[in-house]
């Protein structure tokens, strides 16, 4: 009996170190988050991933499992982020024909729009005396998460802060573009969709697909192009300035 207890004690030490513990917790929280999201009738201001992350944080706080241990274990799962980012090239290729139909406005709008999407926020934070880590974490705020994570690591920002910034940006862009389009009397789904994708990454793109397939296609195009363009100019710029 005492031997069993001893083994139980050693299990309490080894189990948190095992990758499967971290992966089971992550998957369980993910599906629970999706359920909760449906149960709350899909609120637009709170994407399911935020609910799932809150549940997971709660689990980690309750269990004798540290965030560092969890992070090490779950890296077996998050490694897939690499091939998944590469996979984004497929929808990008599929949307290229939209560029052909409207290449001039897209080519002329994208660079200033993507630069300002980062520039306004970084400029405001800089004026308010934010430290370099915060500036680096806010800079890729309009870029789709997998690409933004790669960028923020290059800039030596904080991934968790970036995640928060992405969430606020996505919700805020969706809200402001919907209202601004109404006030400005803009009805072209290509314009609204593109603006949603450039400024509001995946969250904006989801909203664009609610408007219609054309808005959705232009949003995913805007999102992909902003991601690629920002991944190219932002790190270079950062090295020159910083």
């Amino acid at each position: 009996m005492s031997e069993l207890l001893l083994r139980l004690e050693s299990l309490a030490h080894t189990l948190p170190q095992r990758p499967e513990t971290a992966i089971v917790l992550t998957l369980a929280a993910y599906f629970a988050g999706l359920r909760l999201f449906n149960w709350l009738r899909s609120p637009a201001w709170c994407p399911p991933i935020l609910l799932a992350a809150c549940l997971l944080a709660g689990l980690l706080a309750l269990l004798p499992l540290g965030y560092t241990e969890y992070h090490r274990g779950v890296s077996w799962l998050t490694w897939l982020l690499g091939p998944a980012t590469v996979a984004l090239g497929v929808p990008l290729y599929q949307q290229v024909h939209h560029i052909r139909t409207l290449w001039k406005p897209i080519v002329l709008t994208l660079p200033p729009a993507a630069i300002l999407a980062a520039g306004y926020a970084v400029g405001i934070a800089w004026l308010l005396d934010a430290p370099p880590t915060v500036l680096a974490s806010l800079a890729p705020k309009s870029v789709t998460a997998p690409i933004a994570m790669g960028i923020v690591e290059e800039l030596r920002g904080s991934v968790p802060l970036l995640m928060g910034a992405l969430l606020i940006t996505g919700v805020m862009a969706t809200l402001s573009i919907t209202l601004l389009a109404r006030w400005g009397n803009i009805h072209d789904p290509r314009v609204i969709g593109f603006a949603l994708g450039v400024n509001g990454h995946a969250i904006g793109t989801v909203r664009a697909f609610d408007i219609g397939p054309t808005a959705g296609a232009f949003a995913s195009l805007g999102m992909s192009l902003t991601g690629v363009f920002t991944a190219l100019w932002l790190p270079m710029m950062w090295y020159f300035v910083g």
Partner: protein
Amino acid sequence: MLSILRGFLILTAFLMLGDITVELFALPLSSGVAGMLLLTLWLLLRRRLSHDLGAASQPLIGMLALLIMPGVVGIFFQADEFSGQWLTIFIALILGTLLSSLTTLWLMQRLVASPRERPHE
């Protein structure tokens, strides 16, 4: 199932190619982004999307939210690091996003509308 695996092999090979390119040319890019650009370029040159690649990329893209989740959780454990910065962060994000949304809409609307107005001139 084998089709997904074959597609996964292509994606992972492009990730490796991205690794090599980034290391070799000392690019300030993540290898995932470099791999994505290389894959897009390759598809544009071939002008054809193989069934395998589609079969592997679709489920992976669908999993993105799950893969990003562990990073989001970190904010709850590293929030202290940014205490005193939150007001700045919120102002920068909210005001910055409002301004950039306004700029994009205005620019795009002007540029899309202008070619159509030209015949009336």
